[in-house]
């Protein structure tokens, strides 16, 4: 064992290596606690169901599906539903992985031994965020790819911008991760989970209300929905993803009355806003955690 005099030989701390150590710890926990196993098995099952559903739809409704009017609508509709499920499940996964990151784990005494080390608290936050982003973002990537491929193979047809949905869903789940991290600096695990999932639900409801507002010609409702979806930009990203699936022209208007309701293009501005939003969440979490007594 080194003597005290040797303690001077301390290597220059590397924030990146600390982030990776913390992220690895969180990922190890997800593996050892069988979170990834359970998610993997359930994802395989739901993927199989999606495949069976697409195949039976194609098999049983060939006449309708092959008509030129309906043909572009079916894969878009299915991918719209798959996108909703993917974003929802990815968000739930992210919330469960991040809800205890700060206050919850500090209350249990897990954080203190780590942050007493020459690890910046920011590196701790970064590690937890990275782990959740890798798992939840990876989940969304894999499931979206699978759903898009299955749809393409079964129907031999995809909306032209179908692949553009995937980065938008990943961005949406990263927003949820960032929001959860901020809230976890202030609230206990359960309170964090409940509040973020309620905010998530509020975002989705706002999207539906906005669609109703547009259909009924109620601009105030549509305006409120737009404000909420930018305040919670995972919803704006979801709406932008749906927009990528919506056929152009009158057919698109028709489809938007259905499961792709709420589709709305955010443009480049949405990407910039989302990046700034996530960075802002990081800064807020850093500020809050940095001044917390543990």
């Amino acid at each position, binding site marked *: *064992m*080194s003597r005290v005099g*040797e*303690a001077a*030989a301390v*290597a*220059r701390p590397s924030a990146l290596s600390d982030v990776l150590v913390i992220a690895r710890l969180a990922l*190890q926990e997800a593996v050892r606690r069988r979170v990834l196993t359970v998610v993997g098995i359930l994802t395989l099952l739901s993927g199989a169901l999606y495949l069976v559903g697409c195949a039976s739809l194609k098999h049983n409704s060939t006449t309708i599906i092959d008509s030129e009017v309906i043909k572009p609508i079916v894969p878009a509709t299915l991918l719209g539903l798959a996108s909703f499920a993917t974003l929802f499940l990815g968000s739930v996964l992210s919330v469960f992985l991040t809800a205890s990151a700060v206050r919850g784990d500090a209350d249990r005494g897990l954080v203190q*031994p780590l942050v007493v080390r020459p690890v910046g608290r920011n590196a701790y936050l970064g590690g937890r965020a990275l782990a959740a982003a890798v798992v939840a973002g990876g989940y969304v990537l894999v499931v979206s790819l699978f759903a898009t491929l299955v749809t393409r193979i079964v129907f031999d047809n995809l909306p032209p911008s179908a692949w553009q949905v995937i980065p938008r869903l990943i961005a949406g789940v990263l927003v949820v991760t960032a929001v959860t991290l901020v809230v976890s600096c202030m609230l206990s695990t359960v309170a964090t989970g409940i509040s973020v999932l309620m905010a998530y639900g509020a975002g989705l409801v706002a999207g539906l209300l906005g669609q109703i507002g547009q259909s009924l010609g109620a601009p105030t409702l549509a305006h409120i929905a737009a404000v909420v979806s930018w305040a919670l930009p995972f919803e704006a990203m979801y709406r932008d993803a749906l927009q990528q699936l919506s056929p152009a022209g009158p057919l698109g208007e028709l489809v938007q009355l259905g499961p792709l309701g709420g589709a709305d293009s955010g443009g480049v501005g949405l990407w910039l806003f989302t990046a700034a939003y996530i960075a802002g969440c990081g800064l807020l979490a850093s500020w809050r955690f940095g001044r917390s*007594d543990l």
Partner: protein
Amino acid sequence: MVAPSSPPLVSAIGVTKAYKRAIALRGVDLEVAAGEVVGLLGPNGAGKSTLTKLLCGLVKADGGTATIGGAPAGSIRARSQVGYLAELFRFPGWATAEEVLATHQRLTHRPTADPAAERRELLVEVGLAQAATTRVEAMSKGMQQRLGLAQAMVGGPGVLLLDEPTSALDPAGRHTVREVLARARDRGTAVLLNTHLLGEVELLADRVVLIDAGRVVAQGAVADLTAVQGVTIETDEGRTEHRDISRDKIPALVKQRIREGRSIYAVEPHRSTLEELYLDLVGDRESDR
């Protein structure tokens, strides 16, 4: 204040801290030198844990100055010199003892020639040699406490801040911890030992700091604080108790009794214990709360 023989590795000067309206520390001064074990005593709520957390950067001071090896407490440079065992801590239940130590090795930023050998050595030192691959969730509270101590010593820190390190241990475990801390002191480590176990402090600490209601109410070498006060002399007339007489006056008193023609059978100095000192200064504060 008793001045340590070498410059302090741990220093707190006029440190204050309040949690909203509750004042935890009201201007605490404390020093721990290299190769010194200082026992931090006081009733629950006295501010001991707050002071320990403040020194390792978990809590921010409202006023005063706290340093570790000359660096502001809580700074990266200060934390790189500290090993800390919290009173209420937990390691991930899924991790083995080896994995816990390996994680902390990575986070200490101290390159070790043979990390696996250091882990083995630490586990042997705290009596967990056979539990290297045991998961934390399968360990008893005492084993976890030992692992916590090993974790605190990862990288051979210059300063050990230990908050109730023996609270969950049986007598054998406490003995092991005493030996570990004595060896750490011999290596030149500054040890701040926050505990309720006065016996541990009497056996191990070079100095004691007694805190009550956020203030230092006594500090000094254990021998000085537990100095002789009074003596009982047994003569042919019987036993006579002389209270409030200091150690240096006992020979003169004995000579006087001999001059008076008494036969002396026994001279029994009264040495106060830390417990008596503690009760004198702090009283049974717990029952008042």
